[in-house]
């Protein structure tokens, strides 16, 4: 009996490593096809020995391919399993392999995009950025390290999962686990975005709405304080009970204070929702960003921001 050709773990690791270059030759004609073929090469070398078989394998792996670059890992795992079966004599047609690729790339991209690009990366990015804005290098390091650990673990383990499960995977795809993962990602993503809108979109309206002279006892009368350290001590005691409003005889209320009484961040969320509307109407995000800068400059000029 002929010895069964098997892909070694080293072969699969080589494929996994090369798979990180999947999008390298992204082109408008067949999209990720070049990178896919590049990743498959170690496997093709192991499984096929004649020039004709190798050429045929290279050609069929240069077919159209486009999906999210990380969820492509289980797809390549399954493909490895199918190619291995074929190399060992099983009647696996070219069309079957391409069919599995095409069948998986759509639904999986529907999971990969929201989970990685719109949940994990914004969350890690916001986490790192909030630390970075204070000048701490922990921010960028945290982002880089956490992201790459998650990504590489995902790439390897899902590729292995695809390889072990082989063509059976097509049954797991519909509904079930994948659907749940997408849902959880959406919920978490929306929650975090809500928090980020409150914390990181800053709009402050500077105009003063009212200046009211406060009643006696509601403010610190600086001229009536005892001299020296006794005066400092009683000033602090008064401040502790009156708060910041007690520092001046006039209580100044700005427009922002009024808005904050309703809910802090009100203007920020309204602005974000406005941007959602504008984007849905196909207004380019670049145009909106430039418009916001213009509004900022005008606001500063006219004194309302």
């Amino acid at each position, binding site marked *: 009996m002929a010895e069964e050709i098997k892909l070694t773990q080293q072969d699969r690791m080589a494929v996994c490593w090369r798979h990180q270059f999947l999008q390298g030759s992204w082109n408008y004609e067949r999209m990720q096809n070049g990178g896919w073929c590049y990743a498959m090469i170690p496997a093709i070398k192991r499984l096929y020995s004649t020039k004709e078989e190798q050429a045929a394998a290279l*050609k069929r792996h240069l077919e159209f391919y486009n999906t999210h670059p990380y969820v492509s890992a289980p797809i390549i795992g399954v493909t490895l399993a199918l190619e291995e079966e074929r190399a060992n004599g099983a009647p696996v047609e070219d069309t079957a392999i391409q069919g599995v690729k095409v069948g998986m790339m759509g639904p999986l991209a529907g999971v990969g995009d929201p989970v990685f690009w719109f949940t994990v990366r914004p969350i890690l990015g916001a986490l790192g950025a909030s630390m970075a804005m204070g000048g701490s290098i922990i921010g960028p390091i945290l982002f880089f390290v956490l992201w790459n650990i998650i990504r590489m673990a995902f790439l390897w383990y899902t590729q292995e999962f695809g390889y072990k499960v082989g063509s059976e995977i097509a049954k797991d795809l519909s509904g079930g686990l994948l659907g749940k993962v997408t849902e959880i990602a959406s919920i978490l993503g929306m929650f975090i975005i809500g928090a980020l809108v409150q914390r990181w979109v800053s709009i402050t309206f500077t105009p003063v709405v009212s200046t009211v002279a406060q009643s006696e006892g509601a403010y610190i009368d600086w001229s009536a304080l005892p001299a020296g350290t006794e005066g400092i001590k009683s000033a602090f005691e008064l401040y502790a009970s009156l708060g910041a409003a007690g520092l001046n005889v006039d209580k100044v209320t700005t427009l922002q204070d009024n808005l904050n009484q309703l809910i802090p961040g009100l203007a920020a969320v309204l602005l974000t929702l406005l941007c959602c509307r504008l984007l849905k109407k196909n207004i380019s995000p670049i145009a909106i960003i430039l418009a916001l800068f213009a509004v900022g400059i005008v606001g500063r000029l006219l004194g309302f921001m």
Partner: protein
Amino acid sequence: MGGISIILVILVAFLAGMEGILDEFQFHQPLVACTLIGIVTGHPTEGIILGGSLQMIALGWANVGAAVAPDAALASVASAIIMVKGLGDGSADVTTAISTSIALAVPLSVAGLFLTMLCRTIAIPMVHFMDAAAEKGNFRGVEIWQLLAIGLQGIRIAIPAAMLCMIPAEAVTTMLNAMPAWLSGGMAVGGGMVAAVGYAMVINMMATAEVWPFFVLGFVLACIGDLTLIALGAIGIALALIYIGLKDLAKQGGGSGGGSGDPLGDILNDY
């Protein structure tokens, strides 16, 4: 900028350019690219701060399918170089330098977008060469063209970066110092608002009627200053799991309740 700095900047730019298409290690993200440029030019803290600020704006920039998002690679690298030039001999105000760089990052991302579309078009004949190599079973051929394509994406950013490095620092510092207060102040104000666009992009991708309540929850809970982002994340995950869990229970409950779907009515009917 010293010679070694320029070489390192070009190297970082090359990495960022490659990652702009590969999207794996994230060297093109502002947090990483701006920090690296800051480190190799001797302005680490400013680089980190710029990176953090730009990252907030770029949170929603992602390539989905064939649609290409604004380019983070050129935006990060170019704005960081300009900022470093502006800080140059220390005469320009740091905040102005940073907020101007943020403002510049936006048009730069459009330029970067244009450049990546160019590369993706040039990649078509490259892939045809790969086809020719595949016909002959030539592995090396396929590999070489793949690496060349990746290299092209790298120089897409490395060349503009090198050009920017050639601009004399004095020119940038003079320009920054000459900016009137209302302009630099206004841009700082604008910079604070711009993150809203990135968030709006993410929301449009994810929002369904079902998940909007969670947005509200996240927003309101964030008003509590004591809750760190990680604490909020934990709350978010907990809410998501609880909600999904309850949905599952509801589905199962509906299945076993069978008939009328009105459990109380069923119990009463049994009497």
